[in-house]
């Protein structure tokens, strides 16, 4: 007891406490920060629509109808195109759980890329729609990052936040965090407008525009992005900054004040 209290009053105790607190924040942040997703396995086998149809009948037909015409449980897939299928299935949103909340969320994908391509080919055969983009379209080569930033702030940031951390929509819906999302899926999402997200077809946001947006997003929100000032605190702006200032800023200073004002240990026999 005595030793502990002597150490607690040690002049370096406050430093240690502060460092521990800072390290704990960092640790917590690291633990909760979303990890980057493994790249989807890409195989390039030629696939037949027939195989896709088989998969469709098993996994999709109960909601979207046997011919993709839609039902009360799911919209028609005629004309949504291969891009929409690739996005929905590869991000695990489809097939959706039977009881869903306000919106269908990203989850573990249960199909291989080959199967997704088969499914996509089948759905594309139901009616023309956007195709799955190629690497040339969403890759970083030749993109104008700064222009992408301007486009991002005009078209995307209002829902997904200035660095793509996501944000709230009405009645429990939300725009998801874009951290670690495959550039291909970002492209497909812009192209097809999944769920409540509006679409940004090439007539609205040109192919080059989309490339720029993806390059900007990669520059400001990837595992390699530099946060020059230190911990990003979630990239959510003043709310988390304020919380940090209260808990760790003022908290640390009060801890120091307690040390400054406390009585020095008295020499007493216990």
């Amino acid at each position, binding site marked *: 007891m005595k030793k502990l209290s002597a150490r607690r009053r040690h002049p370096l105790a406050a430093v240690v406490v502060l460092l521990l607190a800072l390290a704990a924040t960092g640790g917590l942040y690291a633990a909760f920060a979303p990890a980057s997703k493994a790249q989807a396995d890409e195989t390039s086998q030629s696939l037949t629509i027939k195989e896709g149809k088989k998969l469709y009948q098993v996994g999709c037909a109960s909601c979207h109808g046997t011919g993709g015409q839609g039902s009360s449980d799911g919209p028609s897939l005629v004309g949504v195109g291969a891009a929409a299928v690739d996005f929905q299935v590869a991000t695990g949103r489809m097939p959706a759980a039977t009881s869903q909340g306000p919106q269908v969320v990203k989850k573990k994908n249960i199909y291989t890329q080959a199967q997704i391509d088969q499914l996509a080919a089948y759905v594309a055969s139901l009616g023309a729609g956007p195709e799955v983009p190629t690497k040339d379209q969403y890759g970083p080569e030749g993109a104008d*990052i700064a222009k992408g930033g301007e486009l991002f702030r005009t078209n995307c940031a209002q829902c997904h936040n200035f660095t793509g951390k996501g944000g*709230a929509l009405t009645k429990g819906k939300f725009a998801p965090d874009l951290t670690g999302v495959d550039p291909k899926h970002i492209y497909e999402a812009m192209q097809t407008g999944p769920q409540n997200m509006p679409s940004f077809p090439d007539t609205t946001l040109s192919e080059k525009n989309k490339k720029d947006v993806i390059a*900007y997003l990669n520059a400001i929100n990837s595992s390699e992005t530099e946060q020059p000032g230190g911990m990003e605190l979630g990239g959510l702006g003043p709310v988390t900054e*304020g919380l940090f*200032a209260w808990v760790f800023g003022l908290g640390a200073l009060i801890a*120091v004040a307690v040390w*400054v004002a406390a009585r020095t240990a008295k020499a007493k026999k216990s």
Partner: protein
Amino acid sequence: MSTNENNERRGKAPAGERVADWADGRLGIYSLAKSNMRKIFPDHWSFMLGEVCLYSFLIIILTGVYLTLFFHPSMNEVEYHGSYVPLQGQLMSEAFSSTLHISFDVRGGLLIRQIHHWSALIFLAGMFVHMMRVFFTGAFRKPREINWLFGFLLFVLGMFTGFTGYSLPDDLLSGTGVRFTEGAILSMPIVGTYISFFLFGGEFPGHDFVARFYSIHILLLPGIMLGLMVGHLILVFYHKHTQFAGPGKSEKNVVGMPLLPVYMAKAGGFFFLVFGVIAAIAAVTQINPIWAMGPYRPDQVSTGAQPDWYMGFAEGLVRYMPGWEINFWGHTLVLGVFIPLMLFGLVLAAIALYPFIESWVTGDKSEHHILDRPRNAPTRTAFGVAWVTVYMVGLVGGGNDLIATHFNLSINDVTWFVRIFFFAGPVIAFLVTKRICLGLQRRDRDKVLHGRETGIIKRLPHGEFIEVHEPLSQEQLHTLTAHHQYEPAEIGPTVDENGVERKVKGSEKLRVKLSNAYYGEDNQIPKPTVDEYKEITSGHGHH
């Protein structure tokens, strides 16, 4: 250590002494030092909260001066060619571009910017907590009411200084905040449009507001704050610090350590500690990354558009207000914005004016230097907690979108919760706090009369088990009974000595009602008297 002695020994006084003599001959510093050099300050961590504010303010001034060396308060559009790649070639105001320059191209510029901003957040948080410390301990009572107002003004001015500073970089987030300010100003009846046009030099955003906010931020408001702060400190010195009740401490003295040397070292050292902690935070934690937000454009926005925390209360009021708007005779009364604007002022005014209301209720004209424990002023404490609840509900409302996304809630539900809690919260908080305070008062009373529970169970010869209570020392008895308890006021005689009936004024009736709510039966637990104590302690074996 008199001058004569030294003169005799070495023929010449030490240099420091000669400098002091020189200064005394011109400034009279010895008379000043006589009363202040060994001034006593009591030791308590909560008495250092004000120092946190003072020092973070000094840090803000130091770093702020540095930032002005590089910042260009201009809204001229320039094309960016600095070293931050994702903005190269973008059009932006010079204000934004020079802030990028400070952050990326001035060595240490980012650090100073971050220290400046973190200090500002901590300064405001420190003032809030300091103000609450003063409130809950009753340190605002006579003779310190004016200093309470000084402190309150510092808090309010600090909010606006922070807000104007936060708006200077002209980034997308702060620009959105300025736009909100413009909308709020427009909502003011009759004069709103004019004030807005004068403030912004025409239509929003115009080309003037950065330069105007700049002079407000670096000169006008800090100048007033510096004056108030000096006044605040002079009054603290003049009134001498308050202290908690305890052995040897009375209304007539102040017990603690002398300014020289102990507080010189402790308070001086604390400045460096505060600066060091904030510098370390600025080294490892990013704040307001304006490069990620991009330059302001009135047609762009990011979700999660919140102000710094100290404006969060106002933001919350605006968010949960229903959209009321009344049109009549070609005019519009924008209640949806104007009511929150008024509430913002009223809620702040409520805490500012409280000391005067309490002193009117108690009718107490004497000086108070011994602090109350919050439990011993249950109604005041309950009011304070209710006020904090209103404030916190505002903060929650201001962050409703992040609460919704991070706790998987509907933003509409969060808003409704906050709307209801704005009314219910303070009432619940008031009642609960008062109960807790009274409970604690009862516990203190039991402790005084029956001693401290030791946790030792003793078996009496006849088989009964009792817990041994250890009587308190006189120090403890004194500390627990030192507080003053008011008697509830009564309406004075309604008939004067001549038998003429006088009319009882409404204000007097209100005062008596309030006084009873404060100090009447069930609103405070009478502290034990010496007789009660003696009766119980003399008759050992009581039950």
